[in-house]
C-alpha cells in the first residue's frame, strides 16, 4: 500500500496538470501538497527498512523496498517536494505563460514519478524503463522558454542520454540472456533478488561484457566522465527547479541502478573487476570535473561540474567495499540536500541578475544578503568543509579508501578535491564580493521561498555533527547488502 501512496501522488499531480486547462496556481499548490504525501510514504518505507523489513508488494512482486531503495525514495521525494513548493506557477509571477506552466507541471510530475518508480520496482528491466522515461520527461521541461541554448541543451541531453540508456539496455539484455541460457526463460528472472541469488552461477565472461554496457549506459545518465558532457549543458539551461532535481537526485538514481547491477555482477565475478572500473572512471570523472571547474565561466555550469565531481566521488565510494558504499550513500544524501538547494538559489540569482555568467554576478552579499549567505553555506558544504554533512561523508569515503588499501588513489583524490575546492571558492568569492552594477535592485523578494533552503542547511548541519541512529541503521543496511 505504501508503494501506491508513494507513486500515485505524482501521477495524480500530472493528471491534474493535464486536465485543468488553462493552468491555475491551485494546480501547483495541490501538486506540492500531494508531494508531501509521497514524502510521508517514503518515510514510512524507510521506517520498515530500518526495522529490517523488506517490503514487497504487487503482482509478481512488482515492488520491493530494501534499505537502498528506501534511502533513495526519501531523497527523491524530499527533493521533489521542495521542488514542487518552489516551482514556478505557485505565485502570481508573469514570467511564464499558462501553456508553459501546464507543460512544466505535467512533465515534472511525470519525471518525479519515473524516478520514484525506478527506485521502487523490483524488476531491473522495469527500472531501466523508468530511468529511460526520466530522460524523456525531463527533456520536455528543459526548454521551458524557447531559446537557442535551451533547445541545443535539450537535444544533446536527450540524444546522449537515450543512446547511453540504450546501451544500458544491451547490458540488461545480456544479463537476462545469461540467466536464460543457464536456466531457461523465467518471467521473474529480472527481479533483482532472483537474479542476485542466481548470480554466482552466471558466466563471468558474459557478465563482464554486460557490466561494461551497464556502466557506460547508467554512467552516462549519472554523469560519469567522459559521458558527462550533456550534464553542464542541460543543467545550465534548465529551469532551476529541474536542475535541482536532476543534479540532486537523478544522478543518484542512475548510480542506484548501477549499484544494483554491480551487486549482481560482483556476485558472479567475485573479484575486483567492477571495483577497478568504478575507481578508474570515478577518478577520471573527478579529474575532469575538478579541472573543468577551474575555468568555469557560468555559475550554473559550475554547479553542474560540481555534480559531476560528486558523482565521481560516489562512484569511487561504491568501489571501496561496504564501508565505501556506506560513505557513498551518506554522500548521496548530503549531496542531494546541498546541490538541490544550490540550484534553487541559482534560480533566485538568475532571476535578479538576468545572467548565468559568473562575471555578471558581483556583490551578491549586498544585493541579496540572505540568498548570498545560503549560497555561500551551500558552496562550503559542497567543497566539503565542516560543519556540513559532506565533510563527514567525504571523510568517511577517504577513510574507506585507506582502509581498503588504496592510499595512492586517495592521495590523487585529495589532490583533485583540493583543485576543485580552490576553484569553487574562488568563483564563490567573485560572486559574493565586489560591486554590483547599478541597475541591479537590492533586497530579497519571496522571502518565504528561502524556507526550504533553510531546511536543507539545517539537514546538512545536523548531518555534519550527528548521524541519527535510524539513518545510520539505514546506511548500515545498505552496507550489509554489498557485504557477501
Amino acid at each position, binding site marked *: 500500500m505504501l508503494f501506491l501512496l508513494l507513486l500515485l501522488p505524482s501521477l495524480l499531480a500530472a493528471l491534474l496538470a493535464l486536465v485543468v486547462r488553462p493552468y491555475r496556481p491551485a494546480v501547483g499548490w495541490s501538486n506540492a501538497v500531494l508531494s508531501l504525501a509521497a514524502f510521508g510514504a517514503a518515510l514510512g518505507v524507510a521506517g520498515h527498512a530500518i526495522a529490517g523489513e523488506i517490503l514487497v508488494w504487487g503482482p509478481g512482486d512488482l515492488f520491493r523496498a530494501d534499505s537502498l531503495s528506501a534511502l533513495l525514495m526519501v531523497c527523491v521525494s524530499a527533493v521533489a517536494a521542495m521542488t514542487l513548493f518552489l516551482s514556478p506557477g505557485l505565485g502570481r509571477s508573469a514570467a511564464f505563460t499558462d501553456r508553459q506552466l501546464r507543460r512544466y507541471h505535467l512533465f515534472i510530475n511525470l519525471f518525479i514519478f519515473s524516478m520514484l518508480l525506478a527506485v521502487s520496482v523490483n524488476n531491473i528491466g522495469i527500472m531501466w524503463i523508468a530511468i529511460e522515461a526520466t530522460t524523456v520527461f525531463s527533456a520536455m521541461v528543459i526548454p521551458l522558454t524557447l531559446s537557442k541554448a535551451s533547445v541545443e541543451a535539450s537535444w544533446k541531453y536527450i540524444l*546522449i542520454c537515450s543512446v547511453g540508456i540504450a546501451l544500458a539496455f544491451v547490458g540488461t539484455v545480456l544479463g537476462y540472456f545469461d540467466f536464460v541460457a543457464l536456466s531457461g526463460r523465467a518471467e521473474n528472472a529480472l527481479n533483482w533478488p532472483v537474479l542476485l541469488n542466481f548470480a554466482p552461477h552466471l558466466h563471468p565472461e558474459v557478465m563482464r561484457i554486460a557490466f561494461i554496457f551497464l556502466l557506460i549506459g547508467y554512467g552516462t545518465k549519472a554523469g560519469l566522465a567522459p559521458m558527462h558532457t*550533456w550534464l553542464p549543458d542541460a543543467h545550465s539551461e534548465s529551469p532551476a527547479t529541474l536542475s535541482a532535481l536532476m543534479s540532486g537526485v537523478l544522478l543518484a538514481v542512475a548510480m542506484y541502478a548501477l549499484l544494483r547491477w554491480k551487486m549482481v555482477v560482483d556476485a558472479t565475478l567475485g573479484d575486483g*573487476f567492477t571495483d577497478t572500473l568504478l575507481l578508474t572512471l570515478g577518478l577520471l570523472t573527478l579529474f575532469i570535473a575538478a579541472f573543468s571547474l577551474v575555468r568555469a565561466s557560468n555559475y550554473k555550469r559550475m554547479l553542474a561540474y560540481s555534480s559531476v565531481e560528486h558523482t565521481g566521488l560516489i562512484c569511487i565510494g561504491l568501489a571501496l567495499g561496504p564501508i565505501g558504499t556506506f560513505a557513498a550513500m551518506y554522500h548521496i544524501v548530503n549531496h542531494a540536500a546541498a546541490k538541490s538547494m544550490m540550484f534553487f538559489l541559482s534560480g533566485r540569482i538568475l532571476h535578479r541578475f538576468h545572467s548565468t555568467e559568473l562575471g555578471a554576478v558581483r556583490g551578491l552579499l549586498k544585493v541579496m544578503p540572505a540568498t548570498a549567505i545560503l549560497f555561500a553555506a551551500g558552496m562550503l558544504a559542497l567543497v566539503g*568543509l565542516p560543519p556540513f554533512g559532506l565533510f563527514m561523508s567525504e571523510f568517511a569515503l577517504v577513510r574507506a579508501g585507506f582502509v581498503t588499501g588504496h592510499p595512492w588513489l586517495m592521495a590523487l583524490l*585529495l*589532490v583533485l578535491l583540493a583543485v576543485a575546492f580552490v576553484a569553487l571558492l574562488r568563483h564563490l568569492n567573485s560572486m559574493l564580493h565586489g560591486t554590483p552594477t547599478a541597475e541591479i535592485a537590492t533586497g530579497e523578494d519571496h522571502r518565504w521561498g528561502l524556507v526550504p533552503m533553510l531546511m536543507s542547511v539545517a539537514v546538512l548541519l545536523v548531518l555534519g555533527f550527528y548521524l541519527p541512529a535510524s539513518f545510520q541503521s539505514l546506511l548500515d543496511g545498505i552496507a550489509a547488502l554489498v557485504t557477501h
Partner: protein
Amino acid sequence: MASMFFWIMVLAFGAGTLTALVLGRGALARWSVASLAILGGGAGLGLGAQVILTGTAFSITFPDLLPLAGGLALRLDGLGAFFLVLIGLGAIPSALYGATYTAEYEEGGASMRMMGAMFSLFLATMALVTMADNVLTFLLMWEGMSLTSYYLVTTESSREDTVSAGNWYIAMTHVGLALLLGAFLLLMGGDTAGSFAALRAQADTLSSTVRSAIFLLAFLGFGSKAGIMPLHVWLPRAHPAAPSHVSALMSGVMIKLGIYGLLRFVLDLLGGGPVWWGGLILGIGAVSALLGVLYALMEHDLKRLLAYHSVENIGIILLGIGAGLMFQSYGMMALAALGIIGGLYHTLNHATFKSLLFLGAGAVLHATHTRNMEEMGGLIKKMPWTALFFLIGSAAISAIPPLNGFASEWMVFQSLLGGFKIPVPEVSVVMPIAVGMLALTSGLAAACFVKAFGITFLALPRSEEAEQAHQVSRSMRTGMGALALACVAFGLGPTLIVPRLGQILAGFPGFGGAAHTTFALQTTLVSPAAFGQVSPLFVGIGLVVILALVPLVLHVFRVNFSLRKGETWGCGRVSQTARMEYTATSFAEPLRRVFAEIYRPTRELTVDTHEESRYFIHRMQFRSEIIPWFEKRLYQPLLRFLNFVACQVRRLQAGSAHLYLAYVAVVMILLLLIARWY
C-alpha cells in the same frame, strides 16, 4: 574544577557567538562579545593551568555527536594544556583590544555579526583543537578553526586584495588539511574509530616507510598552517588583511597550533622517529628563520613585515624542536628536553610579543589608516603608550635581554650547541650551521625592528595621516599593556615557567626524569651538564640598577643637567622636513645589497629625455621589485601548470554532440575490449 572551567569556556564562547548574532552592531555587542571571549579565554587558561599543575589529564566524551568515528572525544593532557594556556593568553588581550578596535569596522560596512560570531567560534575551535582526542574531532575542529579564521581574514571583503588574500589562505590551509587527512588515515590503518590512544598503539606496528610517510604528511600539513618555508605564502597575505586583533591571534596563537600538531604526531602518536625527521625539521626551521627575516627586512607594509617575522619565529621554534628530536633519536634525553622546551618556550614568548606587535600595528593602522611605513613617522609623540609597548615588543622579538625573546632563543642556542655530543660527525655538523643561521637571523631581526620601530614611530610624520594620528582607546592600550607586561615577566622569570614545560614533556616516553631534573626551580637557567647558564632576572635587575645609578652618579659629580630644545642640526640646512628623512626602503638598502643574491630584485629604469637633446633628462623612473623565489619558482609554475591542464580539459567540452557521442563510443569499445580479455 576542571570540568567547571571547561563548561565555562565552552558556554562563554558559545554565548559569544549567539550574542554577536543577536546583537549585531553597537558598543553593547562589541563589549559583550569581548567580555565573553575574555571569560572563555580565562576559563581556558584556568583549565590549562590546572591540568599542567596537577598533572592529571581532563577528558570528556560526547559519543552521540560525530558517531561516524568515535564520537566527539576531548582529552586535555599537558601538551594540549600548554597550548590552551597560550590560547587563553592570546585571547584575553586581543578580545579586550578588539572591543573598541572593531568599532571602526562598523562604519566600514563589514558585518559585525559575522565578525563577532566568527571571533568567538575561532577561539572555541582553537581551544577544542588542543583537546581533540580522536581523528575526526581533531579534523573537524582544525578545519573549523581554519574556516572561522578565513572569515575573519575576509572581514573587509569589499577590498579586492582581501578577497585574494583569503583565497590564498583557504587554499593553502585546505591543502594542509588534505595532507593531515592522509597522515591520520595512514596512521589509522584498518581502524575506523581513530581514537588517539588506538593510534598510539597502532604506530608501533607500522613499517618504518609508512611511519616516515606519516611524518612527512604531518610535517607538511601542520607546516602549512605554521607557515614554514615555502608553504608560508598565505601568511604575508592573510595577516595584513585581517583585523589586527585577529592577526594577533592568528600569528600569536593559531599558527602555533601547527607546532602543537607536529609535536602531537611526532612525540606522542608516533613516539619519536629516526634522526632525519628531526634533521628535516631543523633544516626547514633554519631556512624559514633566515629567509623569513630577510623578506621581512624588505617589507614596508608594517603588518606584512610582522607576518614574515612569524615565519622567522616559527623557524626558530622548529630549530629547537628539530634539535630536540634529533637528540631524542640518539637517546640524549636531557638535550632533547632542552631543545623541545626551548621551542615550546619560544612558542609562548612569540605568542606574547607577536600579538603585542600586531596589536601595536593595529593601533597605528587605526590612527593613520595606512599600513605603509613610508607614510608614518613621529607617532611616538602622538601615541606614546602604543610606542612604548611596540618598543618592548620590538626589543623582545630581537632577543634583547632581559625580555622574553632572549630567554627562549638562549635555550635553542644551547640545545644546538649540545649537538657536538652527537656521535656521528656527519649529523652533528648540521648543528653549527644551524647555530650560524640562528645567530644571523637574530642579528637581522634586530636590524629589521630598528627599521620597523624607527620609521614608524620616530622622526617627523611622513604624511598628513601620520600627522593627524591620535591616541587609541583605553581598552586597546590595556590589551597591549598586558602583553608588554607578559613580555617582561616571561623574560625575567623563565625559571618559573621552564620547569612546568619540563613537567609536560615528562609525560612522553623516554623523557621522564630527564625533563624534570634538567630544569629544577632556581634563579638561573642552566643547560644540561652546566654547559651554560644565565640569569635573566639578575641581569634585568642589574640593568635597572645601573640605569638608575648612572644619572645619580652624574648628579653627584655635578654634571651639567641643563637641556635645550633646538632645531635639528643639518649641516647648515635651513629647515628640516620629513622628505629629508631616511625611508624604510633606504634603511634596508645596505642589507638588500648584501643579500642581493637571495633577493634578486628586478630593476627597471626608464629615462625620458628632452626632445632636443638626449643629454637633457626630462624624467627618470626607477622601479625595483623583489619577487620571492618561491613564488617565482614554485607557485607561479604550479598555477600555470594547473591552468594549462584546466585549459586542456576545457577543450573536451567543445560543444559538438557528435564528439560527445564519440567519447561514449570510444570509451565503450575500449572497456569492452578490456573486459573481453580481462
